[in-house]
């Protein structure tokens, strides 16, 4: 949804990075083929991770091909080809992207939302197709998006409540990855905390902008001082990641363990370093060895 579940590139082996990219590319192609070009542009890292998680449980094929695509027309990229393994993730991605667009329309005025309205118009058909595939998830996401709107309207200051919709959506998507009851429980708890992390990290990154514009941000409602609010957010993120790690260990993944380890233990705790602003700053900075 927001793209905070990313790998930490500096600590990745080259082949791990290739596999990760091939997942991203395969998912993107799958989206393009089944749901149209528009969704390709909206794909986020979070769903690449969910794709890997799904394939850690139900992996069948292992062919990575080098293919061209519209976004990278000049260079062939590693791409996971047997796309039916990514069907579940792409359908879930379509459903949540569609609801995110609906949410944007709610947040903006009549004119500002025009662009999103047009987008929604084009997405509607694909959304219906995806929600037919995963009706229970579509229903849950719709329910929690309504809850989100309510929370924003009432300006609830409790950070736990504010995180609830995003966390529950992630839990609903991840829960159906496995058929085993025990795994289901662990997956949903694990994903709940990932969702919590995503929401707080997003609030953390947007805090300055929200203060200027007077938007709803649960961190600002608890603290007047921004640095205090940020510290509070980081502590909450740490708690969520700590809890997520406990469930992650219980999942006992094997197939793509090194990649998921990297994402869980390095990528997410270092989310600040991968902020776009920071990356731009780091590109210019001299590195001391």
């Amino acid at each position, binding site marked *: 949804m927001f793209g905070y579940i990313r790998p930490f590139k500096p600590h990745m082996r080259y082949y791990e990075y290739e596999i990760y990219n091939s997942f991203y590319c395969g998912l993107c192609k799958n989206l393009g083929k089944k749901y149209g070009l528009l969704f390709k542009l909206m794909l986020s890292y979070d769903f690449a991770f969910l794709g890997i998680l799904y394939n850690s449980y139900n992996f069948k094929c292992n062919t990575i091909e080098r293919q061209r695509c519209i976004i990278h027309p000049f260079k062939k990229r590693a791409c996971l080809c047997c796309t039916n393994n990514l069907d579940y993730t792409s359908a879930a991605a379509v459903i949540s992207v569609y609801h995110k667009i609906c949410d944007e329309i709610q947040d903006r005025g009549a004119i500002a939302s025009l662009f999103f309205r047009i987008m929604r118009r084009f997405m509607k058909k694909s959304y219906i197709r995806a929600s037919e595939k995963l009706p229970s998830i579509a229903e849950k996401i719709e329910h929690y998006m309504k809850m989100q709107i309510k929370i924003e309207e009432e300006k609830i200051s409790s950070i736990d409540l504010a995180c609830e919709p995003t966390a529950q959506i992630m839990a609903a998507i991840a829960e159906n990855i496995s058929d085993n009851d025990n795994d289901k429980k662990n997956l949903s708890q694990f994903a709940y*905390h990932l969702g919590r992390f995503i929401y707080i990290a997003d609030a953390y990154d947007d805090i300055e902008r929200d203060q200027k514009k007077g938007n709803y941000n649960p961190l600002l409602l608890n603290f007047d001082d921004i640095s205090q609010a940020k510290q509070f957010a980081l502590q909450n993120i740490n708690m969520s990641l700590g809890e997520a790690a406990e469930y992650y260990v219980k999942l006992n993944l094997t197939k793509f363990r090194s990649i998921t380890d990297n994402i869980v233990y390095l990528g997410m705790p270092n989310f600040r370093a991968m902020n776009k602003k920071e990356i731009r700053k780091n590109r210019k900075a001299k590195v001391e060895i």
Partner: protein
Amino acid sequence: MNDPYRVLGVSPQATDEEIKTAYRNLSKKYHPDHNADSIMEEIANEKMAEINAAYDTIMNMRRNGNFNNANNNNYNSYNSNNNNNYNYNNYNNMSNSIYSEIRTYIEHGNYTAADNMLEQNRNDGNAEWNFLKATICLSRGWMNDAYSYYEKAVRLDPYNREYQMAFSQMKNKRSGQMYGNPYRNNNNTNDTVNTLCNLCQCLICADCLCDCI
């Protein structure tokens, strides 16, 4: 309604502990998670509701003091004590039994029931209350609330080991510790050096022994 004692399969003279173990065994047997088949599930659910109701009635009856159990030494001694003391002890006993009941609910994953009971006793506000509330918040993933409740529990009762353990775990997570982190120990190289040294030592010792023979 059926006799609640018969539902749980215990005699009316059984102690609280016996009833609790009976309840635990039965609820383990009929827990919906263990009976996932469609036919068994309905029966198990019905049975589970019956067991819960029976346990509740027995506990309520005993809490209100309207059972005359000659085996229970506590009650006998209360009766012989003076009235004031009796009331105080009875109150303590009562709130303790509520909390132990809530604990059994939490053990079985029935968080809504446990939370409802806690909310009814909200004005207690003691360490145990805060601790249990924190546990429920934790199970729901409400980390911030859980942290503040744990903190309060530890402040109210600083010498309780259970509260301390839970709170320190929370604090570790808050400071960024992640369980099972493979990147945490970067001095793995030292370990290999150590094992190599050990190996050399063993070889030398073995060599010496060979000389002796």
